């Protein structure tokens, strides 16, 4: 880590334990909800790699999530379970490959323009699925049977089984989390952090910054692809809406809500976002009004996101302290 690591209490094992034990208590619906939150966490973490760690504010991240989800449906046979060995790497590679191509275009721009151009490109991909028969047009397409993992005749993992699915998602969440942690402390991760801190200096130090950004972009696309794969398996259904800019906005919101630049923040953001949707939806028909109000409030008064809340409260209690902008 570029910054001297502060000694912090580590809640991760506790959270992991809670997630592992949850299905014992939870009903089917809440298991699915938690699984969804975990999938969204992977998605949000992948975006955080760009926004929080590389300084690339992408407003089109749903595109990679979406194309991967579509690839699951397209790669699976119509009435038989797809082969996990094929479908999973296929989805991740699809996400990464699309990110590669899009990255070639968008990474030539910077700052506010980058936000716009990623948005525009994601929208282009949205229309590819929306307007062409490739993925069933605007009506979407169904995954009739979810993939399974076979060795010979024996089915090792079957994603149609809700319990198995839950633990597979949990396992992938852990893998993605560890992978990102490892990546961030690697030379590549440090270079990305350097790009976020001062891209110009990275160039003059001799880093081929474009390639590094592309590497980050492709990695994030692949991880988003993993999330897209899991999402397609969870709901067995893909529509162009999963690539829409609303989806990109939502995942960006999760990252901001939780506080960008920390993987835990992405998780907190995903959790808070899904729970808020759930709670507000139950409260009123006009739940989007509440959601909008929360977004505006967070942006206005809580720039560090929810994960900055304890620090802020502490600062408030101790009296003043350093004010963060």
């Amino acid at each position, binding site marked *: 880590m*570029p*910054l*001297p690591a502060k000694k912090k209490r580590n809640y991760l094992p506790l959270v992991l334990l809670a997630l592992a034990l949850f299905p014992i208590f939870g009903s089917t619906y809440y298991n699915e909800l938690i699984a969804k939150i975990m999938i969204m966490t992977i998605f949000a973490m992948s975006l955080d790699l760009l926004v929080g760690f590389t300084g690339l504010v992408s407003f089109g991240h749903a595109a990679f999530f979406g194309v991967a989800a579509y690839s699951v449906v397209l790669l699976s046979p119509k009435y038989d379970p797809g082969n996990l060995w094929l479908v999973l790497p296929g989805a991740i590679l699809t996400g990464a490959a699309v990110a590669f191509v899009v990255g070639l275009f968008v990474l030539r721009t910077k700052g506010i323009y980058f936000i716009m151009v990623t948005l525009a490109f994601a929208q282009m991909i949205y229309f590819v699925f929306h307007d062409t028969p490739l993925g069933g047009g605007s009506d979407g397409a169904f995954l009739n049977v979810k993939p399974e993992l076979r060795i010979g005749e024996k089915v090792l993992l079957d994603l149609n089984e809700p319990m198995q699915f839950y633990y597979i998602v949990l396992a992938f969440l852990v893998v993605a989390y560890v992978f990102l942690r*490892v*990546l961030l*402390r*690697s*030379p*590549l*991760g*440090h*270079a990305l*952090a*350097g790009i976020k*801190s*001062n891209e*110009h*200096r*990275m*160039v*003059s*130090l*001799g*880093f*081929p*910054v474009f*390639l*590094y950004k592309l*590497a980050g972009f492709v990695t994030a696309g692949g991880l988003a692809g993993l999330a897209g794969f899991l999402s397609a398996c969870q709901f067995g259904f893909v529509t162009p809406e999963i690539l829409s800019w609303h989806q990109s906005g939502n995942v960006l919101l999760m990252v901001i809500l939780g506080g960008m630049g920390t993987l835990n923040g992405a998780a907190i953001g995903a959790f808070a976002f899904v729970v808020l949707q759930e709670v507000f939806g139950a409260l009123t028909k006009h739940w989007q009004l509440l959601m909008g109000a929360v977004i505006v409030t967070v942006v206005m008064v809580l720039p560090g996101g929810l994960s900055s809340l304890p620090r802020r409260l502490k600062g408030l209690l101790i009296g003043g302290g350093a004010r963060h902008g």
Partner: protein
Amino acid sequence: MAELVLSARGLSRRFGGLYANRDVSLDMHKGVLHAVLGPNGAGKSTLINLLSGDLPPSGGQILLRGQDISGWSPDRRSRNGIGRSYQRTNIFPGFTVFENCRLAAQSRTPRALRIFSHATGYADLCEAADKAIGQAGLSARRDVVAGTLSHGEQRQLEIAMVLATTPSVLLLDEPLAGMGPEESQAMVGLLKKLTPDHAILLVEHDMDAVFAVADVITVMVTGQVLESGPPEQIRESVAVQEAYLGAGEPDDE
């Protein structure tokens, strides 16, 4: 004379209709400290930006050991040994001094694909970083977050980062700006130490320092080279005195 490393041939740069540099030619040799003097707006920084690749030239050539590198990107030039420092401190403010230099050293051996290794685990990078920190006289501040350093220390770090990339050419844009007398003294000492192994281009306002360290001085006015030669020649040049030294106090930017 020693080996010719970097040279500019008729270099020009226009902004709109104005020439910031016009037909500038100069040579940089290994072991020679080449200083560039000139009043504000003489095009000194533009020259450095052209050599480092931060600005594309409107005309002319830049040769690195005889090879035309005018079209090269700044990062490619850096990888080929052209290191530069900035007039305005340009560091990674959130990182420690060590990490600033370690990252700089990493640019030489990127190892970008070794994503399962610790960035801080490479001894060669750590050594290079520590050596550069030592040369710049920042060893005591190694683990301090760069953004909290004093201005003078940040200037030192600026140099340390360049050194960590083990360049053969050093383009230094006012390294003494904002430094106290003691720090300046140390920097002048460092420049002297570095000269034998590097080709150095120094843009600087501090006359005493320039005449103390420079082997060759080029004076620029309104984007053009007025005169170029050893310090004695420049000191005695009537043209230079009229255009620059005689025009009152040298300003500081």
